[in-house]
């Protein structure tokens, strides 16, 4: 038996092999998650793009997510992947002559769509504008805070995702983690997004928001009715945006979006652009309508109008 630490060839080879085994074991223990979680992390890592998932694969993904979220929030969380309704193209109307800038839409949206409270993410930004200047975005004030609104001489313009027909955010995504669905809603696959934020730079409406940190979402306030492409909890490092409450509107019958329902002045209108009887068609056909930054040719399906 050679003495410990002797430098003859045999002993050296043995100790090197042992050392490599030890290093591998330590690295493995560091890299691999705990035994229970490893399977789901493994699956999440190798999950395909949402649009390439077969039905059984999608069911597996959804079961995994529901289990994960239910455990995390301590209640039964439902994740749906309801497809678009045939013959529906969603359109949105916002009456600038009615909006009083009370911001109830912005907070109603947060509750419905499970945004992070801290750090704060808001999908709707309400701009205060000067009546004499009109829609002059350079003059817009986002942080107005008087005791009462509306303030004299001002009007208010909430801005959120305009669900463009030609969305620049989709065009720039290097991994196709965001796309426009057949019903006109631009969605994000949070499991495919790499967090490069090109889409945020491309969006002319500031409608996309990034999860810099783990979402601060109290379990009691978490809305358990979710959609894979919509309001399910988002991981760190992905981009999110308004989806016209995809978890609500893709049903028959489907509820109005949260912002429509919470608006105290009824300034917000929503419906099917392909249905001649819809409210949104009435707005487009009978009211003075404009779209934001029309010159960019993004062709929004979000119509600002003046009812009076």
């Amino acid at each position, binding site marked *: 038996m050679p003495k410990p630490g002797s430098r003859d060839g045999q002993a050296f080879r043995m100790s090197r092999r042992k050392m490599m085994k030890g290093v591998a074991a330590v690295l493995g223990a560091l890299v691999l998650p705990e035994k229970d979680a490893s399977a789901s992390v493994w699956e999440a890592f190798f999950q395909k793009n949402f649009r390439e998932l077969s039905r059984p694969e999608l069911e597996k993904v959804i079961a995994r997510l529901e289990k994960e979220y239910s455990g995390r929030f301590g209640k039964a969380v439902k994740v749906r992947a309801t497809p678009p309704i045939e013959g529906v193209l969603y359109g949105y109307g916002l009456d600038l002559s009615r909006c009083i800038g009370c911001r109830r839409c912005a907070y109603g949206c947060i509750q419905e769509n499970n945004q992070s409270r801290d750090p704060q993410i808001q999908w709707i930004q309400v701009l205060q504008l000067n009546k004499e200047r009109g829609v002059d975005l350079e003059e817009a004030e986002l942080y107005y805070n*008087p*005791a*009462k609104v509306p303030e004299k001489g001002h009007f208010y313009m909430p801005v959120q995702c305009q669900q463009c027909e030609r969305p620049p955010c989709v065009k720039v995504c290097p991994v196709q983690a965001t796309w426009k669905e057949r019903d006109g809603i631009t969605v994000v696959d949070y499991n495919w997004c790499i967090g490069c934020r090109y889409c945020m730079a491309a969006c002319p409406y500031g409608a996309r928001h990034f999860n810099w940190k783990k979402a601060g979402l109290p379990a009691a306030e978490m809305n358990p009715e979710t959609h894979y492409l919509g309001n399910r909890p988002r991981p760190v490092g992905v981009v999110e945006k308004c989806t016209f409450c995809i978890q609500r509107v893709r049903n028959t019958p489907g509820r*109005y979006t949260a912002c429509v329902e919470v608006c105290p002045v*009824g300034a917000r209108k929503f419906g099917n652009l392909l249905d001649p009887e819809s409210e949104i068609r009435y*707005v487009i056909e*009978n009211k003075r309508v404009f779209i934001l930054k029309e010159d960019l040719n993004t062709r929004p399906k979000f119509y600002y109008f003046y*009812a009076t």
Partner: protein
Amino acid sequence: MNMERARRAIVPAAAAAILCLAAAGVLAAHPQEAPAGTAGAASTHVPHGPQFAVPKPPFSPGIFPCSDCHKEIRPNPTRRELKDEHTDIVLNHAQGQRWCLDCHDTTNRDKLRLASGERIPHEESYRLCGQCHGDKYRDWKAGVHGKRSGMWNGEKQYLLCVHCHNPHDPAFKPLQPMPPPVRPENIK
């Protein structure tokens, strides 16, 4: 011969059926128009159920039915300022041109009164408002003036005009805004 007679009978019957269907279609397309047209001619009450799903009118607590008190009181149709009762109501709605009994019925206080003389329940007060505010009424029926909730492709919940506008003082009152967003430099 029998065949011929049968055919002669069928043709007018079919024509009548088609006409009926067409008429029904027109009525169904504009359910609110049909009775409104007849309302002017009929001073008596035309059976006229609510056509829009609306919640209960927002009465002040304990005030309705009005007849609880008014059945004891002889109606006084003289235009005047009320000094004894309802002093909390300050009319700020074309006050120089009208008073209580232009909208509230003189003899049946539980009803409202249209210019035509037709009495309508408070659940249909939008018809009363629509007499002057026809453009708003038109937009409201289409779901564009005022708030709708419920299903975008199913059952919709309307609100009465008076759920947002106090009929005696209809201007929409300013609200306290929700807090402004956190400035990016303050997001940690």
